[in-house]
């Protein structure tokens, strides 16, 4: 009886001891591994650091240089091209012939008219003779009629002469295309043997007036870059053929407001937050004798902002209604080792160019990690796992 | 022969043995005592002496001797008076109640019953349960929308906001009883089991009734146990502050605002003078009660002998 009771007691104690060991083992296990277990389920984030400094505003654009003075010369009469005298790109002087046209039909017409004129002379002589005969013959009535006949013939004759004169004039004008001013043949559409259709046969541009480039740029950016009419600006011409890339000077001629276009937010979160972006058209004037027009040029204007702050990539900036914020990573002392927590930092006053955003300097500390990308949407205070 | 060794009165034969080698023992005794005495002095005696000192000064550091000014101010303070009277009334009401309840339960447990060991264990178990882990249960029970009010409403009784009215006293009392009744039951049970059976048999043969037996034998033999239970109950009635504090915070309802709350709050507001004066007064009162009980016990035992 006693022994069995003791045995029961002993058994019970062993059981309790086992339970205690299990309990402490469990707690120890979780103490060592709960951080690991937990972090598996945490949002994974990619981070970067913010750089201190000013924001570089960059205006980038490209376009084709157009000459300011340019003439499009159409085929004056729609005749077939007989001969093309100049090539595209050739420099021409004022009055230089460019294209000769096949004027044979007009010449034939002229000859016909001249023949008609000759015929009229003959008829005039016949009328004179008639008049003389009537006058000598004393036929008063016949003489007067012959005189009227004579006057009418003379009128016909002068009309015919003027017609021939006109024809000749036209022929002379339409037989050939001449350069209206000193310049360069920019385009030559005329092809020998064909009549031109639609386009001008040749385009001539003047060197003396220089070239211009039209650019459309973000209005805010233009303001930040403090661009104004009259300012010099540097352009680059892309390498073309043997010509290496080179730069040239331009001057902003005028700035005009362009129609605003609607633009979505760059992050694309939601998409419903779009705002009218002010656009400006810049007209840049370039004077350079080596240019021929039609060159592809690009503008790249970079200027650091006057105020300083923290620069973060735009992908790190989130929007919620009107307010903007970023997430930084706080290293907090957790119970079991350090933990990383996402901290929401509002950035009311921020400036942005296309790729980066500048945050006021009091918002971050040096070395703060900025969350660039997260596997899940974050909230302030969320624990995160660093990649 | 049973003796109460609680404080004084070593047995006679031991006293004789001691006097013989008193001088040799003394040196060894101090060696044995040294670690405890040093720590005790450092963490209890000296702080208490400092406390007494502060209570007579006008500032904790660099203050002047202020006589009884701190005490006068303290006694004039409403919140101290409230706290002191609450503490006093709570102990005065709960200790006899506890005594009666635990003695009754011990008497019943001492009868012929099944599963005595299990029952005893279930009575003691609350003692080992940490306060903080059953806090939430007290909340469930005593909340305005809690289980107790639900039960009351079933019987058509209006609900009571237990923690925010005078009723808070009963909550504290319930928690106190729940936690400590087992401890006292064990003490009484041990006392009861020490009473020789044949005393009752003799009494029965002599024709003594139940009540006569209870007063004549049980209570008499339980006297020293009772003294111990009273002292422990007073001690535990102070400890119930922890439950109150965790349940109701720094400023509970007026009816359960105890001296410890007062002292804690004085500490928080850095009113060292009032705090130390209150502490000294409390120590004085506790000391008086304990010494009074010892005196009473000794006289009672002498009377019995």
């Amino acid at each position: 009886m006693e022994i069995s009771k003791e045995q029961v007691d002993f058994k019970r104690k062993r059981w309790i001891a086992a339970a205690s060991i299990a309990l402490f083992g469990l707690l120890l296990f979780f103490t060592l591994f709960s951080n690991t277990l937990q972090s598996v389920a945490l949002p994974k984030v990619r981070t970067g650091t913010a750089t201190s400094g000013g924001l570089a505003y960059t205006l980038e654009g490209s376009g084709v240089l157009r000459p300011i003075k340019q003439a499009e010369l159409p085929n004056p009469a729609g005749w077939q091209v007989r001969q093309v005298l100049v090539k595209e790109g050739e420099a021409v002087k004022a009055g230089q012939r460019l294209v000769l046209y096949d004027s044979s039909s007009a010449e034939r017409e002229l000859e016909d008219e001249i023949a008609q004129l000759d015929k009229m002379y003959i008829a005039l002589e016949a009328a004179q003779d008639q008049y003389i005969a009537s006058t000598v013959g004393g036929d008063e009535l016949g003489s007067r009629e012959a005189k009227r006949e004579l006057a009418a013939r003379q009128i016909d004759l002068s009309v015919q002469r003027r017609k021939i004169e006109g024809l000749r004039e036209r022929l002379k004008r339409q037989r050939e295309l001449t350069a209206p001013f000193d310049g360069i043949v920019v385009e030559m559409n005329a092809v020998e043997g064909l009549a031109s259709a639609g386009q001008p046969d040749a385009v001539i541009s003047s060197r003396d007036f220089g070239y211009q480039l039209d650019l459309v740029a973000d209005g805010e950016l233009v303001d930040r870059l403090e661009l104004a009419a009259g300012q010099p600006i540097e352009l680059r011409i892309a390498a073309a053929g043997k010509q290496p890339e080179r730069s040239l000077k331009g001057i902003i001629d005028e700035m005009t407001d362009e129609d605003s276009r609607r633009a979505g937010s760059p992050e694309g979160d939601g998409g419903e937050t779009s705002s009218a972006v002010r656009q400006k058209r810049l007209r840049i004037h370039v004077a350079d004798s080596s240019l021929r027009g039609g060159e592809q040029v690009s503008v790249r204007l970079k200027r650091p902002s006057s105020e300083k702050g923290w620069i973060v990539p735009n992908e790190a900036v989130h929007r919620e209604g009107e307010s903007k914020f970023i997430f930084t990573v706080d290293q907090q002392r957790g119970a079991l080792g350090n933990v990383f927590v996402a901290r929401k930092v509002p950035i009311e006053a921020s400036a942005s160019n296309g790729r980066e955003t500048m945050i006021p300097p009091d918002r971050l500390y040096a070395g703060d990690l900025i969350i660039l990308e997260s596997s899940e949407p974050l909230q302030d205070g969320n624990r995160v796992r660093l990649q | 022969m049973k003796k109460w060794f609680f404080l004084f009165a070593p047995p006679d034969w031991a006293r004789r043995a001691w006097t013989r080698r008193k001088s040799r023992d003394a040196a060894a005794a101090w060696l044995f005592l040294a670690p405890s005495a040093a720590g005790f002095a450092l963490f209890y005696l000296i702080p208490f002496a400092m406390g007494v000192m502060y209570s007579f000064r006008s500032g904790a550091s660099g203050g002047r001797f202020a006589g009884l000014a701190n005490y006068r101010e303290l006694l004039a303070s409403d919140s101290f008076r409230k706290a002191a009277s609450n503490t006093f009334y709570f102990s005065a009401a709960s200790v006899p109640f506890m005594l009666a309840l635990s003695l009754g339960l011990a008497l019943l447990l001492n009868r012929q019953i099944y599963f005595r060991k299990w029952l005893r264990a279930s009575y003691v178990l609350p003692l080992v349960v940490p306060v903080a882990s059953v806090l939430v249960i007290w909340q469930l029970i005593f909340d305005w929308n809690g289980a107790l009010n639900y039960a009351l409403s079933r019987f058509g009784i209006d609900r009571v906001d237990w923690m925010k009215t005078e009723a808070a006293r009963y909550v504290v009392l319930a928690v106190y009883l729940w936690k400590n009744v087992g401890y006292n039951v064990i003490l009484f049970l041990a006392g009861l089991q020490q009473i020789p059976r044949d005393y009752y048999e003799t009494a029965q043969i002599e024709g003594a009734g139940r009540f006569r037996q209870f007063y004549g034998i049980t209570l008499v033999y339980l006297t020293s146990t009772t003294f111990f239970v009273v002292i422990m109950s007073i001690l535990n009635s102070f400890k119930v502050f922890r439950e109150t504090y965790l349940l109701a915070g720094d400023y509970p309802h007026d009816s359960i605002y105890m001296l410890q709350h007062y002292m804690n709050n004085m500490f928080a507001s850095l009113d060292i003078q009032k705090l130390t004066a209150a502490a000294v007064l409390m120590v004085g009162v506790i000391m008086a009660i304990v010494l009074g009980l010892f005196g009473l016990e000794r006289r009672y035992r002498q009377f019995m002998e």
Partner: protein
Amino acid sequence: MAVRKGLLTAGLGMIGLLLLLPIAITFTHSLMTEQELTIDYGPIGQRTEATETGADTFVNLKWLPDKVTLEQYGKLLVYTPNYLLMFWNSAGLVVPIIVGQTAVAALAAYAFAKLKFRGRDSLFLAYLLAMLMPFQVTLVPNYIMADKLGLLHRPGAVILPGVFAAFGVFMLRQFMLHIPYAYIEAAKMDGAGHLRIFLTIILPMVKSGMAALVVLLFVDYWNMVEQPLIFLDDPFKQPLSVFLSRLTGEWGTVFAASMLYMSPMLLLFLYAETYFIQGVQWSGIKG
């Protein structure tokens, strides 16, 4: 007779069950799902106009969960690392106190129980009174003392006063008092010194007393709230008792945390129940 015995047992059993109820509720609720708890205990702490008029918004106190789940424990152990840390904090405070106080108290108790010296009784009275005083009594001087000793905001500020607390001395003295002098006399005849007597005779004889003391101290210090609150300012150094008292909000976690927190105590009690009850009895009775 048997009927009476049964009725008495049933009556006492009812009281026993009532006393065990809070523990049982904690256990069953720790197995409930968070939704169930939220639905049942939503009205807690919501005294509003509606409830003022007696509208039926009571909590729904249930005994058993609708669906048994260990979810709350999982959540607690994985997502509340503070809990684990503070569990070990508690252990880190309690274990040194228990070991220290038992050792220091055993030595002192021997002096008080078995040796005679001048001022013994008054010193013991001082110990006894110190044992009865609430912690707040020496709060300020203790604080200043801890500051002077450089212990403030360190675990030592809680541990050291615990090590030198009077309770262990008082209790072990009670146990040593009834070791008969004959043993000591006999040892002295053999030429044993006090240290040897203490180690070879006294200690083995008060083993059960020390076990009881360990249990009682564990109960007491596992529970402490005020001392760490005042002496440790770092929230990561607080023991579990402080943490639990501030844990609000998620009901399920609270129940699971409470259950895990009390389980070492329950296991220890079940393991050493005999010692514990003996210890309590001896401390008050024999002599």
